[in-house]
C-alpha cells in the first residue's frame, strides 16, 4: 500500500507501523519507551511515552507512530509545529519529574532520555511541580533509583515476558505509578534473580549495576595484596564498543594490556576456567548418561548447566523441586576463584587471604554469585570483587589509558591459557557445544571430524539437537531467556523431556547480552556481531577442545587428579537449596 510521510510517497506492507515505514525512508522519528529487537524476540511497545507522536491527516488527535499501523493512502507529517510542540511539551513533563543529576548520573552519555531531550532542543522546563521520591534499593547486583524512572515499561517487559521472573511490574497509579516489586519489597527479597536484563534495557539511570570499582582501586593500592584478574569470554567482544571499536570486535589483546597497565599483578582469563568447567561438567554428564544407559532409573536427566548464576538462582527460587537436575559444577568464575586461591596462591607463596581475585564479567548476577556463602572458605571469598564490562571501561578511562592506541598482549600463565571451546561460553549454545566436543571424544574415544556443531548455534529461544555419539544418540537442549528455559523445565517436571542435557543462559543471546555489557540501546545487530566475534575467536584458536588445553591437563596432573575427584568435588562443585 501507499503512504505519504513528510510528502514522500512510500510503498509499505500491511501491518507496518508509521515508525517502521518512516525508518525505511530514512525518517528517524524519536522514541523513548519503544524497544524492539527481532533477534531476541523482545518487543516493548506500550505506546506509553508519547514522544513519537505524528500528525495523520483526518485524525482528530496525534498518533503514536510506534503503535499506529499504516493504512492505504495515509498522509503523515512528522515535524509540524503541532507535533514538535507536543513532543517538547511531553519531554518537558518527563523532565519535570526527573532529577537534574545528569552530570553525576551513571547513565550520562548513554541515557535515552538525555539523547532525546538534546535532539528536541529542550532549553528549559516550563512545567515544574511536585516530584516523586522512592527509597533507593540496592541488591548485591542491582541499584534501583526509581526517582529516575520514566515508566517506559522496558524492565517490566524484560522481567516478565523475556525472563518470566515477575519481579518488576507497574505498581501504584497516576503520578505515583512506578515499576516496583510486589509489596514494595527490596529486590533481594523479591522474585529477582539478578539477571540484570532490566538494567540492560533501562533507558535512564533508574536501574544500574551495583558498582564495585572503588574496591578494585583500593585492592590495587594495597601493598599487602596480590591482585589477579579474570575477564569472562563475552567481555572481549563488547568492551571495544566503549572505545569506539566496531561492535563485536575482539579486543582481548588490548584488554590484557590495559589490565596490566592498570596494575593487576597477574592478568588471567576466565576462559581457562571455562575449559575446566567442561572437564568437570562434561564428566558429570557422561557419568549420568552412562548410569542411565545401564538402566539406572534414579539418575536425574537431563543435566542442566550451572554456569549462569541468574539461572541457578531462578531454579532455586522458582523451581526448587528440580534442583537435582542442575549440574553441581561451579561456574567458570567460581572455578577460577577456587583454583586461584587454592592452587595458584600456594604456587606463588601467597596466603589466600592476601590474594585478591577480581573478575570482569558481562553480568551483574556474578556480583551476587561471588557473595554466596558457599563460595567462600572461612569467610574469604574465592572471588573477591566482580565488576562489569562497563565498569572496566570506566576504570580504563579513570586510569588515563588511551585504549585504541594500546598494543596487544597475551594473558599470563598458568591460568590464562584457553581453547576455542571456552570462548564460546559467552554465547547461547556455546557451553553445550564445548561440552559436546569433549564429551564426544571421551565417550567414543574417537576424534571429532568437525568441531563446529552448526545445529546447536543460532538465536532461536529454544533449540534441540541430537548428536550421534558413535551410535548413541545424545539429545541436547538449549534455551536462552528464562521464560524460554521454563518451557523446558515444565517438560522435565511433566516427565516429557527426553533430553540428556540442557544449556541455559538467563540472558537472551547469552552473556553477549549480559546485564553488565555496554548498552545495545535496542540495536540487536550489536548482539549478533558479538556472537559472531566469539565464534570467530573460537575458529582462530589452535586448540578448540577443552580437554586438550595443556594447562588444564597440567592442573589435573599437578593438583586435582582427575575430573570429579574428591578434591575437584570439594573445590569445583557446589550445592543448591530452595531460596
Amino acid at each position, binding site marked *: 500500500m501507499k503512504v505519504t510521510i513528510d510528502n514522500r510517497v512510500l510503498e509499505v506492507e500491511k501491518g507496518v507501523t508509521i515508525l517502521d515505514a518512516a525508518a525505511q525512508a530514512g525518517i528517524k522519528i524519536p522514541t523513548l519507551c519503544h524497544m524492539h529487537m527481532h533477534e531476541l524476540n523482545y518487543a516493548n511497545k*506500550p*505506546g*506509553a*511515552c*508519547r*514522544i513519537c*507522536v505524528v500528525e495523520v491527516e483526518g485524525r482528530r*488527535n*496525534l498518533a*503514536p507512530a510506534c*503503535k*499506529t*499501523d499504516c493504512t492505504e493512502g495515509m498522509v503523515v507529517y512528522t515535524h509540524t509545529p*503541532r507535533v514538535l*510542540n*507536543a513532543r517538547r*511539551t*511531553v519531554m518537558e*513533563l*518527563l523532565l*519535570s*519529574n526527573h532529577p537534574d543529576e545528569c552530570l553525576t548520573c551513571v547513565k550520562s552519555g548513554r541515557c535515552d532520555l538525555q539523547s532525546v531531550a538534546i535532539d528536541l532542543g529542550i532549553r528549559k522546563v*516550563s*512545567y515544574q*511541580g*511536585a516530584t516523586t521520591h522512592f527509597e533507593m534499593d540496592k541488591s548485591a547486583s542491582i541499584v534501583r533509583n526509581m526517582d529516575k524512572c*520514566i*515508566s517506559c515499561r522496558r524492565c517490566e517487559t524484560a522481567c516478565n515476558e523475556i525472563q518470566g521472573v515477575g519481579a518488576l*511490574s*507497574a505498581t*501504584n*497509579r*497516576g*503520578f*505515583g*505509578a*512506578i515499576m516496583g516489586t510486589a509489596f514494595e519489597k527490596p529486590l533481594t527479597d523479591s522474585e529477582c534473580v539478578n539477571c540484570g536484563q532490566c538494567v540492560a534495557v533501562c533507558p535512564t539511570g533508574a536501574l544500574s549495576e551495583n558498582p564495585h570499582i572503588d574496591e578494585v582501586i583500593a585492592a590495587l593500592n594495597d601493598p599487602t595484596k596480590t591482585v589477579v584478574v579474570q575477564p569472562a569470554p563475552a567481555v572481549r567482544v563488547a568492551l571495544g564498543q566503549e572505545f569506539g571499536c566496531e561492535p563485536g570486535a575482539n579486543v582481548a589483546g588490548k584488554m590484557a594490556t590495559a589490565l596490566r597497565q592498570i596494575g593487576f599483578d597477574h592478568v588471567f582469563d576466565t576462559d581457562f576456567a571455562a575449559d575446566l568447567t567442561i572437564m568437570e561438567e562434561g564428566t558429570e554428564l557422561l557419568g549420568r548418561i552412562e548410569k542411565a544407559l545401564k538402566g539406572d532409573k534414579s539418575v536425574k536427566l537431563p543435566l542442566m548447566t550451572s554456569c549462569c548464576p541468574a539461572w541457578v538462582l531462578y531454579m532455586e527460587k522458582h523451581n526448587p523441586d528440580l534442583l537435582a537436575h542442575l549440574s553441581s559444577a561451579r561456574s567458570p568464575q567460581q572455578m577460577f576463584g577456587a583454583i586461584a586461591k587454592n592452587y595458584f596462591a600456594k604456587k606463588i607463596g601467597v596466603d589466600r587471604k592476601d590474594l585478591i581475585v577480581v573478575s570482569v564479567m558481562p553480568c551483574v548476577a556474578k556480583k551476587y554469585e561471588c557473595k554466596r556463602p558457599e563460595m567462600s572458605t572461612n569467610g574469604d571469598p574465592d572471588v573477591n570483587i566482580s565488576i562489569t564490562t562497563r565498569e572496566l571501561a570506566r576504570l580504563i578511562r579513570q586510569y588515563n589509558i588511551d585504549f585504541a592506541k594500546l598494543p596487544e598482549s597475551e594473558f599470563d600463565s598458568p591460568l590464562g591459557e584457553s581453547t576455542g571451546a571456552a570462548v564460546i561460553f559467552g554465547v547461547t549454545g556455546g557451553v553445550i557445544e564445548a561440552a559436546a566436543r569433549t564429551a564426544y571424544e571421551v565417550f567414543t574415544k574417537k576424534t571429532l571430524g568437525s568441531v563446529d556443531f552448526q545445529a546447536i548455534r543460532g538465536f532461536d529461544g529454544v533449540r534441540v539437537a541430537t548428536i550421534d555419539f558413535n551410535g548413541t544418540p545424545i539429545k541436547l537442549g538449549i534455551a536462552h531467556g528464562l521464560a524460554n528455559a521454563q518451557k523446558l523445565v515444565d517438560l522435565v517436571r511433566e516427565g516429557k523431556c527426553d533430553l540428556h542435557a540442557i544449556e541455559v543462559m538467563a540472558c537472551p543471546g547469552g552473556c553477549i547480552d549480559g546485564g553488565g555489557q555496554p548498552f545495545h540501546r535496542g540495536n540487536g545487530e550489536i548482539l549478533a556481531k558479538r556472537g559472531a566475534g566469539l565464534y570467530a575467536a573460537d575458529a582462530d584458536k589452535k586448540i578448540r577442545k577443552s580437554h586438550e588445553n595443556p594447562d588444564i591437563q597440567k592442573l589435573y596432573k599437578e593438583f586435582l587428579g582427575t575430573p570429579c575427584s574428591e578434591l575437584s568435588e570439594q573445590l569445583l562443585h557446589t550445592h543448591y537449596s530452595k531460596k
Partner: protein
Amino acid sequence: MALPIIASFPELAEMQKKCAADFALRELSNRPEGVTAEEIKNLHNDGFEQYVLVCGGTGCHASNSAEILKNFEVAIEKHGLNKKVKIVRTGCFGFCEQGPIVKILPDNTFYVHVTPEDVEEIVASHLESGNKVERLLYVLPTTGEHMPDSKHMPFYKKQVRIALRNCGFIDPENINDYFARRGYEALAKVLQMKPEDVIQTIIEAGLRGRGGGGFPTGQKWKITREVQNDTKYVVCNADEGDPGAFMDRSILEGDPFSIIEAMSINGYCTGANHGLIYIRAEYPLAIHRLEIAIAQARECHLLGNNILGTNFSFDIELRYGAGAFVCGEETALIRSMEGHRGEPYVKPPFPSVRGYKGYPTNVNNVETFANIPPIILNGAKWFASIGTEKSHGTKVFALAGKVNNVGLIEVPMGTTLRQVIFEIGGGIKGGKKFKAVQTGGPSGGCLCEKHLDIPIDYDNLIAAGSMMGSGGMIVMDEDNCMVAVAKFYLDFTVEESCGKCAPCRIGNKRLYELLDKITKGCATMEDLENLENLAKVIKDTALCGLGQTSPNPVLSTLLNFRDEYIAHVVDHRCPAHQCTSLVRYSIDPAKCKGCTACARNCPVNAISGTVKNPHTIDPAVCIRCGSCVSRCKFGAITVE
C-alpha cells in the same frame, strides 16, 4: 419461590400472559388517565387492590427503607389488609433527594422523606381509610403546593422512560414481574429472526453507546459478528465511575433482567455464548440483585444451554472491579477482567476484533443494553422517531448540584438544558442565578447561559465544548468558581489516572498544580498560557479516552469563563468568592451593631470588638470559613 422451566416459545408466551394478568392493576395505574373503580372491579389480577412500592435503591436503602418495608409488613398484618395490599420492594424512583420514597398504587401517591414511624399513619389513614397523608406528599418548591400523585410532578412529567421503564415499578428480585412487562418477549422474537436482521434493526434504530463514546451500537455488533471465531464474549460495562453518576447502578438495581435479556440478544447476534458483567465491587446491592436475577433466569432455563428450545446457549458471569475509574475504558476493563493491571492499551485492535483473552468481545454499557429489548419490541422506526437527527432515543442523566430537584431522569435526546434544569430540575436552589452546567463527568466540560437552549445530543454537546459522557449533569450557580470546578475535576483525574502514558500521568498533575496556583492567586499570565498549551497537548497525545478528555474541564472553562481565570491571575480576585486564599472578610462599621454574635462564633478568634461597638476581622487570623456571615443578622459582613 420455585420457578418453572420455560423451554419453548409457547411456554414463554403462556408465562407472560399469566404474569401480565397478575400485574394488570399495576400496569393500568401507569396510564396517563389513571384507572377507574369500574376497571378495578373487572380485573382478574393477583387479587390485591393496592400496592405499596417501597424504594429499595441504594439511596433509600441507606436511609433505612428496609425498616420502612418491615414496618409496612407489620402494620398491614395488624390492620388485616394482607389480602388487599401488596408490598413491593422496587428499584430506584430516581427522585433520590426526596428519599426514602414510598409510592402507593393504583393512585400513584408519592410519599417523600418517609420514616419508619410514618408507616402506621400511611396504613391507617391512606390504605385503610383512603385519606392521603398530606404532610408526606411532595411539595413543589416553586409554589409550595402539595402534589397528590407522581403524575402531576414536573420532575416526572417531562421524562420519557425507556431505559428506566421498569425501575421503581417492578420487583427486581422477581422474574415474574419482569415477564409481566413483556420480559423476554424480545429475546423470543430475536431467536426467531436472523442475527443479521436483528443487527440491522439496531443499526436502523440508531442507538449509540450510552457509556460516553456514542459509537453506533449496531455497527459494533456487526463488527463482532463478522469476525470469525468459535469463542466470543459479550461484556456489560457496569464500571460506572463518574463522580455523582448512578444511572447504571439504578438500572441494575431496579431492572437487572433487562440487562440479562439484552446481553443474551447480543450473544445470539454476535455469535457469543459467554457473557461477563464487569461491575464495581462497591455496588453490593446491584451485585446482589444481579446474582438473584441470573439465578432465576438459569432456573427458568433462560440462561444456559438451548435457550427456549433453540440451539442458542448463553450464560453470564460477574466480574468485580476494584473501583478504578480507568477500568470503565473498555481496553482497561478487559485487562482488569483478565487479571492484569487495569490499564488501557492502544486501539486498534478494537475489542470487537481482539478483546477478552484475545477473543472477539462486544463491550456495551448498561444503559445501552437496557434500550435493546424495547427497540426489538417496538421497532427501529419507533426508536428513531425519538430524539434528534443523529442521536435517537433517550438519555438518562444524574441531575445534581444547585437545582431544586436532584435525581435520576430520562429525557428524549433533543431536550434542552433549560428544560432539564428549569422544568424537570425545578430551577436553581435558593433562587440564585444559574451559572454553568457540567456534563460528561471528568471528561466533559462546563457549559454556560448561552448553551441553555441547545438540544442535548452527542454532537451538540461536543460542538459546545463538552460531551454527553455517561450522563452526569451538575448544575452550578453564581457561588461556584469555575477555576475551582476545573480544579475539582483535575483532582479526580490525577487520582484516577493509571499512570501509563506520560501526558496523563505527569501532565494532569501539572495541570492541577497550575490550577491550584491560580486559585491561590499566585499565578502569572505565563502560567495561564502554559495551562492552555498543556491542556491541548494532553488532549492531543494521551493514550486513552480518559487522558484525552481529562483536560476538557480546563479547556471548556477557559473557553466559556476566561474572565474568571483572568480575575484570579491579574486582579487576585475570585469573582464567586469561593477560593479562600483570594477572599477577604470585613465588617462594615456602619451596619455592625456590636451584637458580638460573629465574634462568639468565630472558630479562630479572628474577630474583636466590644459590645455595641463595631467589630473588626483580623485577616491574618481569619480562615475564611464564612461562619460569621451566616451569624450576622445585620448583613454587616462583606466578602470580596
